[in-house]
């Protein structure tokens, strides 16, 4: 019932729109519809070598379909790559809607309808078998995202999204046209690309178009505005799920349509094609700059937005390097990022829901007030900082290994230092929001929000112990592209350079924690209130004169050193581009004088050029 799923989404979105006045019922309907991709995911699981019990697959979904729609045909087929990204989107989506059921208040029907359409588009994109289908669903997704961005009522966000969205669409369209022109087919499977500069330009355009969606620098400008001015459940899905579609497209076109030998025609650097190397360098730069910018933010949403950009830079590095190890790492990083960033955005939403504040410097001390939100966020932050007690580390490890395997001397340190930078902003979130002086007397977040967050935390914990399970589902993707899968067992990943045994780490950590616990429980302790704090002997009645929470301008020395270089850098660059475009179009306007004589001269010149070209050729 593949086509029926699409109909269900369309009907579902109409129904929730009609149920605008009953947000609860609308939420239930939307969640019910949103579970369909999940069933599809389960039914298609054998494709990636997973055998799930048959009672889980309640509904049957075709693996391949061609559906006549008017003059054209919609061609859909599930591939391992599509399955992997569907796994990210289909698991996040219902939970995000669950969170939204208590978060979104006004015009809820519109919200759910747009969300369902977004998912419809993504579902189609992931299943598309040819470029036309891909483009149609891509545009459905993009425009329904615009509908959701419009709900934020922020001019900057809307304008930047529109501008970069159209740029992305334009680049994709041009790229598709070039590919069609050179190969004569729309089907991904039948395209045989010749290594000509034109095809390379086409592929570059397509990759650039996807880079906009993946918020790769310098095409990221829309992301911080959109992320920081839209509703949190949507942003969680946008950052967690939808931004991955850009990277899905990149992998599809760089390794499915084009191949490594195709890129290698133009030379390689340490076994990596120059094209991929450039992408990896851009990715590394994005990871570093995104991290530095995230460190400087005070708005929680902006911080998370820049952190998203930075973390997705790693995915781009992996795709750029393009060895089996790197691709596995990129996919793993995409998976981790989906879950931890969704949790973090949802936790930020929960904090906002209770306190009504976004600024980190105005929050504080919520760890004791909202312990479950805090713990979920803590896990996500550990994953974000890739501490080896969550699955976050395995992905980064694979990427580092891949970079070292290729002998990348200059990209790897940037990746590593961006990883260290992640500790800085991770701690800024922890301290500014959850630790420090308690400033808000609030309750724990509602149950629906907690459930959504904690289910999203689950994969981080599971794949910590069994990173091999992720490698199991990425192996078919690599095999499809003719690559050797990474050697692994459920908990040991082995590369040419070293091995990583998660069980050893976890057991050793449990052991040492146990030792520490013995040491620690040896003596009883007394819990004192927050007021009993050493401030050079200042008695608590004078605390009103002292700011106990040091979260505003937290990394001020850092900003003193780096602020000038990074702040506003990208936007200023685009402003220059804009000024250039304006200058050029002003120049172009001068040609259109409105005089018949001038136009006849132009036509004459045109013919002269044509004749000259014909003569010389």
């Amino acid at each position, binding site marked *: 019932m593949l086509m029926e799923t699409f109909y269900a989404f369309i009907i579902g979105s109409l129904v929730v729109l009609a149920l605008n006045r009953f947000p609860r019922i609308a939420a239930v309907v939307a969640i019910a519809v949103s579970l369909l991709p999940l069933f599809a995911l389960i039914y298609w699981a054998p494709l990636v070598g997973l055998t799930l019990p048959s009672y889980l697959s309640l509904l049957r979904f075709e693996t391949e379909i061609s559906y006549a729609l008017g003059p054209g045909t919609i061609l859909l087929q599930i591939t391992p790559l599509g399955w992997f990204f569907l796994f990210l989107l289909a698991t996040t989506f219902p939970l995000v809607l669950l969170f939204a059921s208590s978060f979104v208040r006004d015009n809820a029907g519109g919200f759910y309808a747009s969300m369902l359409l977004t998912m419809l588009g993504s579902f189609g994109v992931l299943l598309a078998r040819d470029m036309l289908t891909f483009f149609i669903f891509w545009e459905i997704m993009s425009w329904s995202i615009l509908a959701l961005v419009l709900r934020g009522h922020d001019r900057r966000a809307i304008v930047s999204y529109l501008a970069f969205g159209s740029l992305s669409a334009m680049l994709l369209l041009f790229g598709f046209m070039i590919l069609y022109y050179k190969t004569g087919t729309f089907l991904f499977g039948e395209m045989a690309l010749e290594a000509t500069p034109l095809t390379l330009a086409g592929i570059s355009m397509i990759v650039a178009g996807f880079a906009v969606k993946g918020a790769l620098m310098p095409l990221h400008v829309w992301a911080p505005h959109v992320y920081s001015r839209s509703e949190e459940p949507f942003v969680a899905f946008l950052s967690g799920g939808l931004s991955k579609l850009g990277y899905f497209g990149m992998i599809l076109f760089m390794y499915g349509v084009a191949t490594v030998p195709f890129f290698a025609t133009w030379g390689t650097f340490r076994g990596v094609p120059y094209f991929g190397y450039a992408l990896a360098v851009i990715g590394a730069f994005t990871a570093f700059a995104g991290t530095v910018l995230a460190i400087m933010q005070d708005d929680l949403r902006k911080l998370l937005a820049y952190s998203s950009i930075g973390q997705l830079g790693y995915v781009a590095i992996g795709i750029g390097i393009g060895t089996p190890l790197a691709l596995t790492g990129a996919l793993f990083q995409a998976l981790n990022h989906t879950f931890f960033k969704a949790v973090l955005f949802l936790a930020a939403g929960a904090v906002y829901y209770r306190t009504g504040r976004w600024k980190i410097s105005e929050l504080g001390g919520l*760890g004791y007030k909202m312990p479950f939100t*805090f713990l979920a966020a803590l896990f996500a932050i550990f994953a974000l900082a890739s501490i080896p007690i969550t699955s976050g580390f395995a992905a980064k490890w694979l990427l580092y*290994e891949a970079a070292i395997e290729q002998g990348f001397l200059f990209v790897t340190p940037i990746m590593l230092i961006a990883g260290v930078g992640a500790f800085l902003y991770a701690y800024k979130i922890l301290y500014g929001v959850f630790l420090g002086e*308690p400033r808000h007397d609030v309750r724990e977040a509602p149950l629906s929000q907690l459930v959504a967050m904690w289910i999203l935390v689950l994969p981080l914990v599971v794949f910590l112990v069994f990173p091999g399970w992720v490698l199991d589902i990425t192996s078919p993707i690599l095999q499809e592209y003719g690559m050797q899968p990474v050697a692994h067992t459920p908990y040991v990943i082995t590369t040419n*350079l070293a091995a990583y045994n998660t069980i050893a780490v976890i057991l050793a950590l449990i*052991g040492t924690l146990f030792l520490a616990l013995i*040491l620690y429980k040896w003596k*009883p*302790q007394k819990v004192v209130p927050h007021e009993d704090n050493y401030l050079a002997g200042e008695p608590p009645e004078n605390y009103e004169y002292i700011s106990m929470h040091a979260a505003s301008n937290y990394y001020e020395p850092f900003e003193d050193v780096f602020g000038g270089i990074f702040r506003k850098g990208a936007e200023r660059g685009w402003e220059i581009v804009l000024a250039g475009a304006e200058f050029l179009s002003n120049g172009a306007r001068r040609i259109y004088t409105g005089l018949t004589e001038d136009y006849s001269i132009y036509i004459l010149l045109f013919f002269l050029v044509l004749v000259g070209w014909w003569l010389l050729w």
Partner: protein
Amino acid sequence: MVIEIIEKILLLSGMVALGFIIGMFFNGFARKVTARIHNRVGPPIYQGYLDVFKLFAKKTNISHGWIFDLAALFSVAGIALAFLFLPVAGISLLSTEGDLFLILYLLAIPALGFALGAGASGNPNAAVGIMRALMLMLAYELPLVMVIVAMMVHYNTTSLATLVQMQSNFKWALFVPQFFIGAIIVDMALQGMLMEKPFDIAIAPHEIASGPMVEFGGKHLGALMLYKMMAIVVETTLFVDLFLGGGVVLSVEQYGWIAYLVNFLVWFALITFVFFLALLINAVFPRFRIEQALKFYWKYDALAALLLLIWVYAGVSI
């Protein structure tokens, strides 16, 4: 099977205990050396043991809640974990199960755990101290990872155990010209890692009342002292493993248990020496400001590391 597991567990806990014992010794050693440089008598060399014992013998122990307690737990557990993943005197207990990247990230567990607890105390001094510590970490990690990456590419491995093995028979990385410079760069980074002067910015007792530790006392402080002392052992061992062949001088196959003993003694002498170098700098320097530290590491140290990278890059492709 069961006996093997028990054996392994005993070995590992013995290793952790050894690490703590050496760490506590280093505390007294450091104070004694500093005192002698200051022309003082200084405390007895076993002072570290007394201090830790006293802290755990305190009658009241004040906590600020369960997040505060995580600091003590995670700092001790995390640093012990990092120690287990290091090859010590050629003995690699768990070091084949992970690699250098894992160790670099394992070192973040105690740091972040500690930061978590310090932040939970709600003291502004602690927050400022943590800010400085994290920024210092960002500062010294850049030259450190640059040199480490250069070594990884040069030796074509990321595993520290393999690296130590490749340096056996005195083929120390220190004797390779480019990594001699690398060792100097990393030694400077080590000064920041150990938080000795001029990089004791995060603690700075005279400015921000010992920074992150401001609210810790009694057993909590005892746990943190254990962490700091063990961190000395871990960080110096990392240096010794990277550049000085991990202290392996005799091969175990040839000499049997004597080799273990000798290697162990050599390892101990080497880490003491590395720490001693840091102490010499510590004893005579005042303190940097945090911007100065950041600029020092990112300008001079990282620039030197960049030259090293270029050298290695040229060397590899020839």
